[in-house]
């Protein structure tokens, strides 16, 4: 390795990017922009789920149930209908996500403890909204039931306490209200910080397409210097985002940051090293930029999104996918970012992941250098 050669290539790459204003802006800010967009999408709390209600009984009790259910912000009464067909229609049209049907014998069944005579129909194509609707309807209905139940039991002369089931005390660490965004946003950081890798994949094919590579190969530069020199500018750009993104996360989205920033910075550098190494491998194998783009989408971007355990827990993935996730730098980095933001854990817990990333980085660069030949064909 020649430091001089490395520096020459790095300098050239930096000039190349700096002098193309639009690309520079895009490369610098895309990670942050993407994070902003996606975090926004996720931080949406479900509310105002549209439902329809069909009340067959129309009694004072059923009406009070309806009132209770529609009182809050969480459910929005799209319309109260008179027939089952209307409900079917609305569900198909997608105007409502769930429907509540109050049976004609609602009151009597309720009073005689013969069950809860309501039906809920949910749109299975959007289970989130559906589940939400069910939860909230059930919650309100439960209150009504409890009142009734209590009266009945007292009427029967039984002890109220005897019907208390298990008392469940739930304590949630790090994220008391279990808001998805608090852990998803740090996870997204992991995904978004991998973007420079896509740009790195492009640089080698760019030289191939523009014909500057042949000349470069004829010089005595070593493979490692060439590949590494092309990576370094993007490490810098990545680091800029490493600083910028948490600021956005903390200031705008109010994600708590409890950890040590220096530690985060150091581990992020290692991550960049690893993910850019992966990008370099893609660049080594692809002849044209379009191909490099396509491959890096398939191997870096999409897996980084879906397979790194950000949205879907790795424990629930099949064995092979779990193994693959291990090989993705994003997986380990997501654990690091989550750890640094929420629990604010330190090096003592995070060091294995840092080591893993270092190992992956070195392996990737080794593979890239191995397969990159200073030959045209």
């Amino acid at each position, binding site marked *: 390795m020649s430091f001089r050669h490395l*520096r020459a290539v790095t300098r050239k790459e930096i000039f190349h990017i700096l002098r193309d204003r639009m690309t520079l802006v895009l490369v610098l800010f895309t990670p942050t922009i993407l994070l902003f967009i996606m975090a926004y999408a996720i931080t949406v709390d479900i509310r105002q789920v549209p439902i329809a209600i069909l009340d067959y009984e129309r009694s004072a009790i059923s009406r009070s149930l309806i009132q209770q259910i529609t009182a809050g912000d969480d459910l929005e009464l799209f319309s109260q209908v008179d027939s089952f067909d209307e409900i079917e229609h609305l569900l198909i049209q997608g105007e409502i996500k769930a429907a509540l049907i109050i049976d004609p014998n609602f009151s009597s069944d309720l009073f005689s403890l013969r069950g809860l005579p309501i039906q809920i129909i949910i749109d299975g194509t959007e289970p989130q909204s559906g589940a939400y609707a069910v939860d909230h309807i059930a919650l309100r209905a439960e209150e009504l039931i409890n009142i009734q139940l209590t009266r009945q039991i007292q009427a029967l002369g039984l002890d109220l306490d005897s019907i208390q089931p298990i008392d469940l005390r739930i304590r949630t660490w790090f994220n008391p209200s279990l808001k998805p965004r608090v852990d998803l946003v740090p996870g997204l950081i992991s995904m978004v910080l991998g973007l420079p890798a896509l740009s790195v994949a492009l640089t080698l094919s760019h030289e191939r397409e523009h014909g500057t590579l042949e000349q470069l190969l004829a*010089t*005595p530069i070593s493979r490692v210097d060439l590949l590494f020199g092309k990576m370094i500018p993007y490490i810098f750009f990545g680091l800029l985002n490493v600083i910028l993104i948490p600021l956005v996360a903390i200031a705008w989205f109010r994600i708590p940051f409890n950890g040590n920033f220096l530690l985060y910075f150091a581990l992020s550098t290692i991550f960049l090293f690893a993910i850019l190494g992966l990008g370099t491998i893609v660049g080594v194998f692809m002849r044209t930029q379009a191909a490099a783009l396509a491959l890096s989408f398939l191997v870096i971007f999409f897996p980084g999104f879906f397979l790194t355990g950000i949205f879907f827990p790795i424990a629930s993935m099949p064995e092979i996918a779990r193994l693959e996730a291990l090989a993705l730098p994003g997986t380990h980095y997501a654990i690091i970012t989550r750890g640094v933001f929420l629990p604010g854990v330190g090096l003592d817990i995070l060091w294995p992941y840092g080591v893993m990333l270092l190992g992956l980085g070195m392996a990737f660069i080794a593979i890239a250098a191995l397969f990159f030949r200073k030959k045209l064909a």
Partner: protein
Amino acid sequence: MNSISPIILTQGLSRDFKSNRAVDRLDISIQPGELFGIVGPDGAGKTTTLRLLAGLLDISDGSAQVVGFNLKKNPESVKPKVGYMAQEFSLYAELSVLENLTFFAELYDLDKNQMRERRDSLLEFAGLTEFKQRRADKLSGGMQKKLSLACTLIHNPPLLLLDEPTTGVDPISRREFWNILTDLHLHGTTILISTPYMDEADRCTRVGLMYQGRLVECAPPHEIRANLKGELVEITPSDWKQALQLLEDLPGIIAIQTYGESLHILVNSVDEQLPEIKNVLHKHDIKYQNVRQTSARMEEAFISLIRQIEA
């Protein structure tokens, strides 16, 4: 002459691609200080040969020694001593003239003083001194080629491999380019240059003709020209189109080339064929002037050689 070891020595050098053999058992020996030209039609294997010698392609068969190194075993060792200029040498568009030069200077490990000195003299050489801050993509075609050459020369290599360096360059720049090459030649640099221009072939110490991957002729230019079978007659008829049609199929006529409004006719013997020619033209009432016998040029020699091979 033979006691000095050749700077390039190949034995049976071959290179195969998927569908064809681009370089076929090349045996060539080039002495230090030669100005060697490689000519040949498209697809003859010129570019592949240069790339092989520069260490940019794997050798399929045979062997080669370049600047004292075994090309198969040590391709990377060859590179510091060779200046290779690709046919489509692209400079780094966003970098300035100076930055491009400096980049290559760094890669060839020139020390600070060397670098400054070489840069300045090369810029001078190439007439680019006043443009040194300009972005490479804002240079004219000729200037770009000269800059490319400068980048190739920056480390003062003993061997230059140039692949059609003057293609697409205006005549004046081309002349300046050759001034540089001649100067280098005088100072002992070995130059291997492939060219489609016959007049450039004429300026070389030796010319190699490649055809379908093989080296079919390798000799100094005057020998090649002398070996040309046939004599050349130049004539300017009043209706060259018709004259061309009439004369094409005459016996003893090897080839006819048009030059503006004149015809260059390659005949077996001027004494025999010229009267014939005059007769035919006369018969069809075509007037002519400027009849004279000219010496064969590389172009004719080249074309007739190719024709012989194809036959």
